[in-house]
């Protein structure tokens, strides 16, 4: 549990307290045209109706992670290298996605 609404460090390993039998984790990496991991990309999670749900900033490993629920989600990345959008059908457990940003 966090005492703030800010996003935790996105490079950290999944906390041991997170129960993957219960949680639906949407995670992945942001890469640029060169295939390099992008640090400092803003990744937002939009729900099935396109409504904003959450946003995190990628760390050194270009990683992002959300805790959501099973169903259809959209991931949207903004960065200085450009933008990317990804659709995902999430199930319980860890759901991995790669977002390739470009202008």
């Amino acid at each position, binding site marked *: 549990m966090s005492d703030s609404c800010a996003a935790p460090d996105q490079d950290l390993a999944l906390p041991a307290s997170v129960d993957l039998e219960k949680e639906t984790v949407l995670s992945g990496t942001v890469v640029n045209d060169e295939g390099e991991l992008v640090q*400092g990309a803003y990744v937002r999670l939009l729900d099935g109706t396109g409504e904003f749900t959450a946003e995190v900033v990628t760390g050194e490993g270009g990683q992002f992670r959300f805790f959501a629920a099973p169903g259809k989600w959209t991931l949207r990345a903004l960065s200085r290298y450009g933008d990317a959008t990804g659709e995902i059908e999430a199930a319980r457990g860890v759901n991995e996605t790669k977002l390739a940003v470009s202008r």
Partner: protein
Amino acid sequence: MAREDVLVTADWAEANLDTPGVVFVEVDEDTSAYDSGHIKGAVKIDWKDDLQDPVRRDFVNQEQFSQLLSERGIANDDTVVLYGGNNNWFAAYAYWYFKLYGHESVKLLDGGRKKWELDARDVVTEVPKREATEYVAKPLDWGLRAKRDEVEAAIGVKNLIDVRSPDEYAGRLLAPAHLPQEQSQRAGHIPTALSVPWSKAANEDGTFKSEDELRELYVGEAGLDESKSTIAYCRIGERSSHTWFALRELLGYTDVKNYDGSWTEYGSLVGVPIALGDEPGTK
């Protein structure tokens, strides 16, 4: 109040980095963001270590706020420009403090750290040296802060604006989706509260929408009654500071309060009414 009285653009900020009497302040929870690079000359305020009381569940009092600004080298007559991550949530939260404690001239950098980074504007790691001041905060302005009893009494009487995500409002999630969901308090929302997620007030790059768009959002779409007072809340009072800013500072509604106890307090109270689902519910 005009937009330029409370917001500065990134272009304005870049042109005024060295202007005497203008102090840039980065406000974050994760201060490693500041340490890895910040706007030149900006001092940092840590949301947790600097703005919360270390013992009681409350924020810093008048004396603590005076001491903090004195240490940071901020004077009563400085123009303070706040910015931060998370679409300026923490900067808006700090802005609310500056207003609570009566600072005359304070503005938000529109778009905050995000817009600055997406524009690929320069950041530095050098920490500025500012001479300490003798800042004197005014007594807390209770016209801007709502407490729990006032919130319960406002059900069906004042505008209540719940700015969390639709799933948190309906009770399907207990916390924002970037946080693990294990929490003990009840889910749902305060009966009669209108759901207007904070994010609807902002563009994708973190800047605030125009006043016309904001008025349409709150009055046209959500049904805010302009003749009534308003209380905004979220989970812990940061995201609702962002909406409080939009309603009071940009749209100019005079009686708007932020309920910083928000859902972590309300959803843990014994015996208060709670509504579940996507509708506001009744008193």
